[in-house]
């Protein structure tokens, strides 16, 4: 172990693995990282164990990058462990930042989720009523699995977070830029900063032509033939780009899909979904309540549009039960 090297750990909580792949997607740069760092844990690529981390002195790690949301007690346990052992804790990716896709589960209760996954799922064998239990008695002994929380949390709901790298997943070049900065030893931005993203919205980098906006009808992307040059929102496609930080490289609109907001809210915005609702409805071209309702009926699943990634980080955080 070379103490001159940067001591780091990467971890996935409730995640899909995309964040880890985005780190790997830095291509050859990963070799520079490997040269500059000692990696103590990185489940997707490295065989570090929890006990190895537990054995480290507190604050030993220079950097811990946590991706994924906090869905169960294991996610939280490791978040606390890494926090204790690290000087800098980074929430990496949308899930750690604002809850991400797993956060959408906050519209349901734990019981509903279990029912859907373990009881009513068509692939469940008839009569099988097994639902995960944190403790199970087996042959006189007790087996435990992590407790499934009643809702999804973002990382900073459970531990103190120093920096956020947004995105689902973060763009590899952003990951590279942030890691390079840390490796270089240059001064870091103020604690709590969102790094690897722009202070301006996606529209800044989106090359589609923007005009004044008045909407008579909303469409899902497949319902119309798009004008590839024109702002998607102007075409009636609910695009979250104007309410979302840029930094992703305009991946979605450049692929003719609207922005879904994975880079999270703008610096001054408290609730990204509220802003999406406010702006999209403001530009409806009608002053008649009935017509407005009719136009709005073209927006299906408003929760999905407003909080595709930001549910757990929103003001309401979860549905009311």
């Amino acid at each position, binding site marked *: 172990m070379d103490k001159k090297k940067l001591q780091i750990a990467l971890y996935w909580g409730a995640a899909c693995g995309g964040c880890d792949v985005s780190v790997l997607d830095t291509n050859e740069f990963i070799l520079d990282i490997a040269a500059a760092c000692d990696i103590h844990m990185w489940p997707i690529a490295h065989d570090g164990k929890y006990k190895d981390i537990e054995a480290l002195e507190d604050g030993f790690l220079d950097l811990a990058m946590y991706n994924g949301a906090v869905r169960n*007690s294991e996610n*939280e346990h490791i978040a606390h462990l890494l926090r204790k052992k690290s000087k800098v804790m980074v929430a990496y990716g949308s899930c750690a930042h604002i809850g991400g896709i797993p956060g959408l589960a906050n*519209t349901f209760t734990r019981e509903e989720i279990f029912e859907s996954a373990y009881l009513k799922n068509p692939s469940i064998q008839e009569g099988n009523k097994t639902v995960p239990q944190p403790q199970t008695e087996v042959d006189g002994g007790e087996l435990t699995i992590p*407790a499934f*929380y*009643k*809702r999804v*949390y973002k990382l900073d*709901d459970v531990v103190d977070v120093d920096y956020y790298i947004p995105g689902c997943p973060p763009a590899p070049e952003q990951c590279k830029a942030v890691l390079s900065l840390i490796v270089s030893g240059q001064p870091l931005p103020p604690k709590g900063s969102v790094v690897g993203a722009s202070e301006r919205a996606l529209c800044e980098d989106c090359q589609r032509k923007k005009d004044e906006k008045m909407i008579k009808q909303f469409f899902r992307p497949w319902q119309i033939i798009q004008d590839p040059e024109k702002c998607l929102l102007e075409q009636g496609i609910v695009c979250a780009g104007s309410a979302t930080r840029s930094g992703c490289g305009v991946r979605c609109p450049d692929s003719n899909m609207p922005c879904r907001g994975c880079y999270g809210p703008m610096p001054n*915005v*408290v*609730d990204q*979904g*509220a*802003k999406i*609702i*406010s702006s*999209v*409805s*403001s530009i*409806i071209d*009608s*002053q008649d*309540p009935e017509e*407005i*309702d009719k136009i*709005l009926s073209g*927006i299906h699943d*408003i*929760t999905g549009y*407003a909080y595709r990634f930001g549910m757990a980080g*929103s*003001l*309401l*955080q*979860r*549905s*009311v*039960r």
Partner: protein
Amino acid sequence: MGFEPRIVGFLCNWCSYTGADLAGTSRIKYQPNVSIIRVMCSARIDPTFVLKALSMGADGVVICGCHPVDCHYISGNYKAMRRFPLLKKLLKEFGVEDERVRLEWVSASEGQRFSEVINDMTDKIRALGPSKIRVQLDADKVER
């Protein structure tokens, strides 16, 4: 004393706030459960304000603006008119009861109507019971 709802009212300066003032100068009595926050126009009311109030423990939120056509700012109230149904759609998906959030048009001369809106809303929310939003958010911090 039983449950007393806490309601936050966002009122536009020119019509509704003046209408609420008129209820005062006319000494029209209504229930004390609404606390009013003045904004220049109902168009200023960001859905964020409503969510913020609910997350802070409001049992209800009422938005009041000038009647359609009557807006001091020509068309500000139409912006509120467009935003409100989409916000309601979202709140419904979040399980927030319909009675808790309202949009009402109250003109500067409708002190009486303002008092009726507040009384009606207070009664309905009192019957509905306290909002669980804040309680739930607080509980989430303690018990996962």
